[in-house]
């Protein structure tokens, strides 16, 4: 479908085509640089000293790169009244993400399995209701959730955030597995049933072994979403129980003392690292998850 380099009468004029191609490459390279710029500025600022930041240019490479700001952000920066850095919040996020991703993925797999291979009257309505749950603005459940977590003593706890993320991630994980298992041949499941295999045995022995790709997609999608969440974190946790994104915002928004831009940027890098790492390692699956979340049905 590369039509741009051909002229109206269908023949290729070499000079014009070459100019057009130079133009395309130039446009793409400039755009790519623009997209990279904020990341570059974030990284280079985090490696500069405060004096260099104040006196120098944002775009300049660090004269004397140092990880001092990273060390400060990790272990010394003040968030609220405690000056122990972001490391505790980073671990809060890890402790929240790992169980939430595992539980919601497992439940999503089972739900998808039931909704495709053990259909019952009304399965479409059930799925539709779970699907709509993916898209609600969480503001519409925020107050009741805060009350509930308070009642059960789960506010300000990692367990509470895990619960919240499992619940509001279920729609997506179910969607992913349902669409994947939809394409899985029913004949294999029927054959196993005739052989006497039960519900869990079929799931465990037949569907799960071939679910590798969708598990990766779901885990990445959930990991990114939960790690990056801010609204639930800021609503249901405070102080030292906050996840990383909330701590980063508190650090950057705090107006006391000298504004340490390099430390802010280093903290932002820490908050970005896990998801960026996943993206670099498994970008293909990341995109597939986004697409599956966008194109439903």
């Amino acid at each position, binding site marked *: *479908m*590369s*039509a*741009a*380099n051909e*002229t*109206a009468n269908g023949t290729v004029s070499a000079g014009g085509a070459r100019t057009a*191609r130079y133009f*395309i490459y130039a446009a793409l390279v400039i*755009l790519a640089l623009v*997209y*990279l*710029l904020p990341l570059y*500025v*974030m990284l280079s*600022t985090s490696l500069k000293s405060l004096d260099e930041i*104040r006196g120098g*240019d*944002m*775009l300049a490479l660090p004269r004397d790169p140092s990880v001092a700001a990273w060390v400060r952000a990790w272990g010394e920066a003040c968030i609220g009244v405690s000056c122990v850095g972001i490391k505790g919040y980073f671990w809060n996020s890890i402790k929240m993400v790992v169980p939430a991703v595992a539980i919601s993925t497992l*439940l999503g797999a*089972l*739900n998808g399995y039931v909704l495709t291979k053990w259909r019952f009257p009304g399965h479409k309505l059930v*799925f539709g209701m779970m*699907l*709509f749950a993916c898209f*609600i*603005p*969480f*503001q*519409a*459940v*925020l*107050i009741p959730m805060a009350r509930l977590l308070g009642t059960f003593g789960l506010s300000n706890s990692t367990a509470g955030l895990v619960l919240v993320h499992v*619940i*509001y991630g*279920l*729609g997506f994980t179910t969607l992913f597995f349902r669409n994947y298992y939809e394409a899985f041949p029913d004949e294999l499941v029927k054959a196993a049933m*005739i052989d*006497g295999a*039960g*519900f869990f045995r079929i799931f465990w022995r037949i569907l799960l072994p071939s679910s590798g790709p969708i598990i990766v997609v779901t885990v990445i999608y959930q990991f*990114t979403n939960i790690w*990056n*969440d*801010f*609204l639930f974190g800021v*609503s249901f946790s405070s102080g030292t129980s906050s996840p990383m*994104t909330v701590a*980063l915002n508190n650090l*950057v928004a705090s107006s006391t003392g000298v504004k340490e831009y390099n430390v802010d940027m280093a903290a*932002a890098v820490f*908050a970005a690292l896990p998801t*960026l790492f996943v*993206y670099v390692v498994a970008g293909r699956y990341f995109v597939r998850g*986004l*697409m599956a979340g*966008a*194109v439903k*049905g």
Partner: protein
Amino acid sequence: MTTIEPVPVVEPQRQRSTFADGLRNALPKIVLAPSFAVILVFVYGFILWTVYLSFTTSRILPVYKWGGFDAYYRLWSQPNWYVAMQNLAIFGVLYIGICIALGLGIAILMDQRIRAEGVLRPIFLYPMALSFVVTGTAWKWFLNPGLGLENTMHNLGWTSFKFDWLVNPNMAIYTVVIAGVWQASGFVMAMFLAGLRGIDGEIIKAAQIDGASSVSIYRRIIIPLLRPVFLSAFIVLAHMAIKSYDLVIALTGGGPGNATELPSTFMYSYTFTRNQMAVGSASAVMMLMGITAIIVPYLYSELREKQS
């Protein structure tokens, strides 16, 4: 029930107790039930709870005293709410429009048998992996009026360059648009690129043989064929725009003043810091209605298409 199968079953050992049979038949539903129950309670039940709260006189804490439409009257008489709605309109239109235009533009450029596609694609897409808080933090620094872009332009010799949008109440909402577009446009590009790759090459070839120029091939054939992608992109972006919260908080904090207030920030501050829980609930109900109006017809048509 003890019904005897009229047709002999293949394996005779299936003559077990009816209880075990019943259990086995119900097992899939038992597995699905907890998830569905959780969704019913925590999504639909909680939505009803919020709707109910919006009809009460709740302030700092929920009270269940009926207040009629009072909270809605108060919501719609708040100048702040109009600022939020106006900002959502500006942000939504520009964010969706620019993301789609830029995403389609880059996708078309990328579709010209580009050699470095494998390098370029991840560069356009990586912002989508970042948290909105990270994006907001990075752009807040990048657009910092004293030390950021403005300073860089001055250093480059353009001393009259002025870029104070971040602290200028009239322009601050546009910084949210810029950061939002930076984050999401690569994803829209990937959607369009997937759409472009799915188009049947024969149609294009036929048009080329008929002597159509490449511009008119794109305008008359390819772009109309991408209609479903436009729809998907619109749905995804519109729903993200209404939900946008983290980005504004990290980038501008809703300010300067209330210049970048959005319904999401309005809801949060009225509920949790201004002790106007009923008004906050009413605004949440408004947001839900907005999203429902966009999502439900889309989901309905998607699910129905699958059936046929």
